[in-house]
């Protein structure tokens, strides 16, 4: 099924669900009775206003983006001043995946908050993406690099790297052997590989 559309998050996207699990540091603005258990460091049954704790974005955002927010937020340090400067200095030198493997996805989520740091995120991501684009394409281009190198890239870049590398491999095998060879389908090949591996485990 060669139909591969570019990634757009939707209700069922695994990456969107995982990236919206990233933590945002929040300060409770409204006492939340009966939710004390959310703050492991306190015994109180209620979540007292003024408490500081990290909440996943899928919770922090609806709690913050209300006319009377339940929480105020702080942007993670990788999107703040100091880190922004490192990135704008030389984006290609940064192991972006170590900052967060959802650096772009989570950044896109964060850009929705009404917050001084958040308004700068869009440009930050755009500049980083543009200046790193050549690096990602070059990695995909020389297929000598084994695919695990993609793990050094955040998800958004990793997907582009893997698609680029796949079409590069198809081109090289076409240049060498021409078209027309019929392959075992992917799932069948993986299934047989696993079966062989299991057999080997059994009798070693």
């Amino acid at each position, binding site marked *: 099924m*060669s139909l*591969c559309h*570019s*990634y*757009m*998050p*939707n*209700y069922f996207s695994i990456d*969107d669900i995982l990236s*919206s699990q990233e933590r945002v540091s929040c300060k409770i603005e409204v006492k939340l009775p009966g939710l004390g258990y959310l703050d492991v460091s306190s015994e109180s049954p209620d979540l007292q206003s003024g408490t500081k704790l990290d909440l996943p*974005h*899928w919770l922090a*955002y*609806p709690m913050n*983006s*209300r*006319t009377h927010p339940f929480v105020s937020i702080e942007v993670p340090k990788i999107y703040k001043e100091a880190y922004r400067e490192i990135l704008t200095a030389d984006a290609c030198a940064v192991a972006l995946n170590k900052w967060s493997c959802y650096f*772009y996805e989570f*950044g*896109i*989520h964060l*850009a*929705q908050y*009404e917050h001084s740091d*958040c*308004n700068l*995120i*869009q440009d930050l*991501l*755009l500049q980083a*993406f*543009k*200046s790193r*684009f*050549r690096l990602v*394409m070059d990695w*995909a*281009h020389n297929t000598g690099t084994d695919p695990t190198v993609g793990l050094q890239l955040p998800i*958004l870049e990793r*997907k*582009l790297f893997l*698609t*680029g590398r796949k*079409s*590069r491999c*198809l*081109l090289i095998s*076409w*240049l060498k052997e*021409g*078209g*027309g060879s019929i392959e075992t389908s992917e799932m069948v090949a993986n299934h047989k590989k696993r079966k062989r591996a299991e057999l080997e485990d059994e009798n070693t």
Partner: protein
Amino acid sequence: MDPNEVEFLGEKQLVTIIPSFTFNQIHLISGSIGPFRAGLPTQVPIWLAVNLKQQQKCRIVGQEWMDAKLLIDVKDEEKTSKFFTKMPSDHYMDETLMLLGVAPEDIPQAEEIRTIVKDLWDIRMSKLRTSVDAFMKSDSAFAKLDHLTPMEINCIRPSLPHALDQRDRIQTCGSRPRDSQDTQRS
């Protein structure tokens, strides 16, 4: 799209063959071919020429542009030009690989032609990679790709379109209207 699907389209191009058999006209769905007279040239689609050659039923006459001197001029012009120049055929690369692959002995200077075409391809490929990078940084909303052949376009697809889609996604992320309960994200 895989390269062999682009090649599949390239196989519709016509090529001259010298059949070793005689047969009157054959009415294919895509059009009539023949009549075939042993020893006399006639034009057939490449997919048929390759099959007939494999069954030793014909010899293949190389395309007119498969000429070393002509190709060297095309290569030099490509090297000096900032933009992509027009190629002698929309499927120059796949035609060369197919015809030289099945009938190297039929086409004069076959190896030389293969090398020149490969050099031409490499020149255009590196030109393509630089213009792709420049285009990504330029923020312009569309790119001129005149004279790029389907196989070359296939090399930057889906990477470039996907990358541009992600660039657009980032560009529009901040300006989404704030609504209290973003159902998509809940």
